[in-house]
């Protein structure tokens, strides 16, 4: 359904939708370069959407992955810029840990406001996004402005020990990819095999009933959100140290928002995040290529996200209706 609606948008722009989709697919998966870009871009998507899937399972609508990613990138970069002389085996793990903590702390305030005052987390996590991006701006135009950045809002390039290794000639920074895959597997076991996973699902089903069953709502939400926003923070470190080799404006290409869609497309199942993230990433990579060749504007990704989200909702409605009529 979403494909059909976006097809209409292509038609309005005088582009044959089928050939556009063909071009997207070919751009994303049809060449070594396209494929490697698709995988590289899927890394932050896997991390963020995995975190969001967990939070959404507990019905905490974390819309703040974007800001949490930025904060993780800032904190990780802070380490990279402060200890450039450290060897990689000490520096890189510390960057990831601090990035995780930074992201998690950025998600803490909305979480506390939700558990203590029942304040709508959608609004607060979004506000935290805006604040994070402005802090990033402040750092890049102010104290962290690179001496070699020619006036661009970039820091200096990190020292070589703070740069993540990549698979030969591509932008796939495999340490982050490995963390992402490990996190997916860990999350799968967390949800399926542990008490916490059980509690997450119970809270998600019905918070009031879960509380009366003796589950500590605050504890569950707090834990889930620390994991969720921490993972986004790790994604931020990966982008800074793996893709750009520095902190810069636009460190996230809207990954935090795209991950919301991905999490829903996965029906909030951790294992699916890898495959759906790769597919979505392919769409981004292929989409970028046709944007350039066909002259389509950037906004089309947002439209796609919005339409896709509506389609998921309508799909859920249909499933529910079918389920009811079968009963």
């Amino acid at each position, binding site marked *: 359904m979403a494909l059909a609606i976006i097809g209409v*948008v292509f038609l309005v722009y005088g582009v044959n939708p089928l050939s556009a989709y063909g071009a997207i697919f070919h751009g994303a998966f049809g060449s070594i370069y396209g494929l490697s870009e698709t995988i590289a871009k899927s890394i932050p998507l896997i991390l963020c959407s995995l975190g969001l899937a967990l939070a959404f399972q507990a019905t905490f*609508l974390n*819309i703040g992955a974007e800001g949490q990613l930025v904060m993780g990138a800032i904190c990780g970069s802070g380490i990279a810029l402060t200890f450039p002389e450290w060897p990689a085996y000490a520096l890189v793990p510390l960057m990831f840990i601090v990035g995780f903590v930074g992201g998690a702390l950025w998600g803490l*305030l909305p979480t506390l*406001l939700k558990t203590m*005052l*029942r*304040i*709508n987390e*959608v*609004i*607060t996590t*979004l*506000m*935290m996004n*805006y*604040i994070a991006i*402005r*802090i990033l*701006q*402040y750092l890049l*135009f*102010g104290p962290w402005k690179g001496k070699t950045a020619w006036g661009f809002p970039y820091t200096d390039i990190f020292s070589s020990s703070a740069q993540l290794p990549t698979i030969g000639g591509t932008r796939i920074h495999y340490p982050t990819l490995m963390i992402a895959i490990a996190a997916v597997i860990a999350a799968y076991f967390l949800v399926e095999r542990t008490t916490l996973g059980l509690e997450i699902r119970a809270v998600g089903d019905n918070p009031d009933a879960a509380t009366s069953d003796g589950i500590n709502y605050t504890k569950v939400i707090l834990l889930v959100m620390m994991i969720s926003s921490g993972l986004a923070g790790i994604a931020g470190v990966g982008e800074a140290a793996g893709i750009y080799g520095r902190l810069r404006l636009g460190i996230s290409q809207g990954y935090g*928002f795209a991950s*919301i869609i991905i999490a*829903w497309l996965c029906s909030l199942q951790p294992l699916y995040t890898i495959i759906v993230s790769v597919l979505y990433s392919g769409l981004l990579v292929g989409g970028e290529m046709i944007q350039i060749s066909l002259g389509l*504007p*950037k*906004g*089309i*990704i*947002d*439209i*796609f*996200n*919005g*339409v896709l*989200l*509506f389609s*998921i*909702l*309508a799909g*859920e*409605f249909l499933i529910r209706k079918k389920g009811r009529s079968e009963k």
Partner: protein
Amino acid sequence: MTTLLPIITSIIKVAIEAGSPLLAGTLGEIFTERSGVINLGVEGMMIMGAVSAFLFSQITANAWIGIMGAALIGGAMALIHAFMSVKLKVNQNISGLALAMLGSGLSSLIGQKYIGIPGYTLKPILFGLDALTIFFILLVPASWIILFKTKIGISIRSVGDNPEAAYSLGVNVYAIRYICTVIGGVLAGLAGAYLSLSYIPSWTENMTVGRGWIVLALTIFASWNPIHALIGSWLFGGIEAIQYRLQPLGISPSLLGTLPFIFTIIMLVIGTRERVRKRMGAPAALGKPFIEE
């Protein structure tokens, strides 16, 4: 004193102007939420209002047609949300979010040819304020009277508090929710029109910069009361005014730019605490779909 007075009046004027789109959006969202529907898509409807006001006024060379276009588009977007939440009964938070994304994307798609073109400007008519601002201010008492002193208002509030009871008394729950959600969209559209025709008469991508989200916080801060909405909007406008005043003092504009968002969170906290303290209720059925038995 002679130097201070003009500064104060100019701050007040900027506060009223900057508060204007927030006021319109908040009044709209108050209607929507009073009827029990929560629409998080204000940002999307507002930005679509801004781009369509600019577009329509460029095409027809008439700012008023631009304003009407913005109202229409805002209303139409709200209709999508109403359909999703009232008819399909889906998760309203997510539907609103989808609307926000859709608006952001569509507006940058539609508006990309118009970036940097000077727009049609509304002229000030009273105390240096333009017609839209004055209209928004007049809407405050009007909405208050409608919500709290008329039969329609009672119906709206009862639908938001206890749709089952309202339904059994013969109130058309669906119709009221549809209408109130569309009112919210129309006003969010007008807020956008104000931005692109008066506040910054031009079109730039993402020119709403989060105002649609601030509106949602203001609605809670105002405890769903139009008069409190006026106070909240002007307070917020004041923050924006002070921001411009502080900039020449050498404080980073990026850091100053965080103020509205920090303040939004503070307002949410204050609003919620007040509500708990005075037991002023949010519409009891807010965000819950109505299912006929």
